[in-house]
């Protein structure tokens, strides 16, 4: 059982502000797990602590209290280079603002995680082209980010996030800056990645449509998990309806 858990969050707390300053408790004892191959959504109103949570999981920030275990690594015990290496190897991240380096071509952007590992050039080529096929961006590889549309940029970012086969793919409102068509394409892609490559996906969103692509949704309220719903065998539109209903009761 334990070997199948990719993310295990236990009593996670985060307080912003130093002891002598005004403090704000963003997370107040959070508990949840993500199993291998799961597609989990995290929903909540703006300011409910979603980004804060994701930052803890991806080691961009450190928790005040509690444990976070990702793919067997106790994230809270890591320091310095270990943290950087962990980010580079264990997690793939898609950001709302793409986070692409505009001085590099799409191909170079996608290859970055492999270059950091010191992967041989030939292996790298193969991996890049494989992932580019999967995400249908093979014809964009030689372009610079400034020559790409928002949807294309986000697909390149997704390719970079998964090219090195991380244990989990995380997205913080990855559709936030996209039009509805591009958003849908990206969500379909993430579903494909989840199903074909059996990669766990953790999607943070406040948008019910995006959330309807997930298998299980956790609702955050006031820094804690408020409730949880599962898609089960429902089709997406039925699940979408369920999410809307849940939000209705949840927000009261």
């Amino acid at each position, binding site marked *: 059982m334990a070997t199948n858990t990719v993310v295990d969050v236990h009593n996670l707390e985060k307080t912003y502000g130093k002891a002598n300053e005004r403090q704000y408790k963003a997370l107040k004892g959070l508990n949840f797990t993500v199993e291998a191959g799961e597609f989990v959504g995290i929903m909540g109103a703006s300011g409910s602590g979603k980004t804060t949570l994701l930052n803890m999981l*991806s080691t*961009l*920030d*450190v*928790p*005040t209290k509690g444990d976070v275990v990702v793919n067997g690594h106790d994230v809270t015990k890591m320091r*310095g*280079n270990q*943290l*950087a*290496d*962990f*980010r*580079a*190897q264990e*997690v793939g*991240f898609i*950001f709302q603002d793409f*986070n*692409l*380096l*505009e*001085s*590099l071509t799409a191909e*170079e952007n996608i*290859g*970055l*995680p492999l*270059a*950091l590992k*010191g992967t041989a*050039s030939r292996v*790298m080529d193969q991996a890049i082209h494989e992932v580019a096929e999967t995400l249908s961006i093979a014809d964009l590889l030689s372009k*610079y980010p*400034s020559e790409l549309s928002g949807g294309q940029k986000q697909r390149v970012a997704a390719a*970079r996030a998964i090219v090195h086969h991380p244990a989990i793919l995380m997205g913080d409102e990855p559709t936030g800056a996209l039009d509805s068509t591009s958003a849908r394409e990206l969500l379909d892609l993430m579903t494909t990645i989840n199903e074909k490559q059996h990669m766990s996906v953790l999607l943070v969103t406040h948008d019910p449509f995006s959330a309807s692509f997930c298998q299980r949704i956790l609702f955050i309220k006031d820094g804690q998990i408020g409730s949880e719903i599962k898609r089960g065998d429902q089709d997406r539109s039925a699940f979408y309806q369920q999410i809307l209903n849940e939000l209705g009761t949840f927000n009261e």
Partner: protein
Amino acid sequence: MLGKLALAGIKHRRRDYLVLLVGLTMSAAIFYMFANLATNRAFIKANAVVSQASLIFGFGAALLILITVVYIMYANSFLLSMRQHDYGLFMMLGATRKRVGELVFLETLILGTLATAVGIVIGLLMSQFLVGFLLDMLGLHLAHLSAFYLPAIIATAVLYVGLFILASLFNLIRLTRTTVLKLLHTDEQANQPKNHPFRQAVSAILGIVLLAIGYWALAAIKALQVAAIPIALVTITIGTYLLFRATILVIIQGLRRTKWARKHLNGFLLGQLNFRVYNYTRMLTIVSLLFAMALGAITVGSGYHRQLPMMANSLGTYTIAVHDKTAQEQKLIDQLNVKHQATYTQKRHGKVVYYNAAELKQQPFELNKGTTEAKYQTHPKYYNESLKKFKQSGSQSLDFLSLAIRGEQGFFAPKIVSAQQFAKQPGKTVTVTTVRVKDMDQDKQVLKQLNKLELKRFAQPAEMTVGNYQSYELMSGFFGGLEFMGYFLGIAFLAMLASCLMFKILSGAPGDQRRYRMLYKVGVRHSLMRHGIAKEIGILFLIPGIMGVIDVLFGLQMFKPLMQSPMSPYLGIGSIFAIFIGLYAIYYVITLTLYWRIVLPKAPTD
């Protein structure tokens, strides 16, 4: 309210402002020191020898003004790069353009005025101590050099405040002409330049042709005379620019295709350089040229000084001649590293000075072929003539004549007579001792004392020199001024050009902040980012450095006709280059440290 906000923004980046302020202050201080030297009438009048070089000082001042203008331009763009995001925000929050414009204008002007005022004060202090120290090191004594000189203060203040008013206006126009959105997002642009093979090939060829013309002009200064300098300046600058612009993209893009580019952050480094170097072309060309000028100034200045003894030695046979030496003088002579020494007895009567033939036979008067034959000018060859021949030729040489000066009327006419005749000859008896030392530089201090004692007892017409030491002293007065200029301008130039480069690079830091933040998120180790930045900035420093060194190596050709072999403008340039590179490296380290501080993402702490 807006004023308060602006002040808060400045406080937030006070360290960067401090760097800017220190840079501007130093520039103003250097300018004041130079203006003080170049314009101080009392000082120039009191130093007749140096006043011959006042033309050079004027030329130096013109160059210094030029680089000051360039310098302030870059400092200003650094200032703007720090502020434009804030200004954009103010406008988005509803501040009128006019209000923001006023703010920009005032901020620039206040900063500039402050820097000028502090700079002049520091310049005063430096004039007092540093200039004296530098002159002392060169063995020069310039009288009437006062640190406080009102016209110099006015000149510095007018130039700097004037330039800052221009800079403020420039910022005002720039900010009010760009859209708010652009101000907020300027950091995010990293335009990738495109290749244009045909255009690049043409510009590369044109560049090479221009460079060839420039270097040829320098080497052919004998034929072209003064025209060589402007020709070389224009052709080398444009040639370097064209060649650099045409080739750099090809090189970087070639490197990007290698396997090396696909390891660690190398690809990112090349990507950065690809857009940065291209945008920096103009800047790097200017910097390389200034670098060359600075290096050239020091090299030539010190080159002359180092070769002075050699030049002085070609002018005569003995280093110094002492008449009727006292015990004190004998003591000093004993301290010298004597290569050749002789003492002759003179009897001066009427317009004639009599010498004893027996004495001259026993210790013949040494002659130097260097004074008569060009071939030996730099390898002094000493020889003796038979007494018979000496009576006809050698005794009429200036060196021999100078042993008996008859005041303003010239020399006593020498007459060599037999020992018996000499004994009977009436007249005033004077003994004269000629000394030739091994190395004038080494015995400089003793020679100086000896010369002083000699001149005190035997007045000598002005402008007349006896012995190589006096020639040496006269020339070092003249060339020393040149050398001082060389060092002063060289160091000032280097300081300013390196800060130009520093400000230009630092102006790009806000944009890089975002990029390194991205790398941080993707999981790039801190050490890897540090090394990447060190390499990137290192290359930006290295390019103008290398181009400048090449320019100097060719540029020194210009001085070849003025220095005959084995004297050469290339003699001993190694140590000068080393000092220069050391100073340049310090700037690199400062820039790098600042860049790291601005750009590297801070790891979260609990």
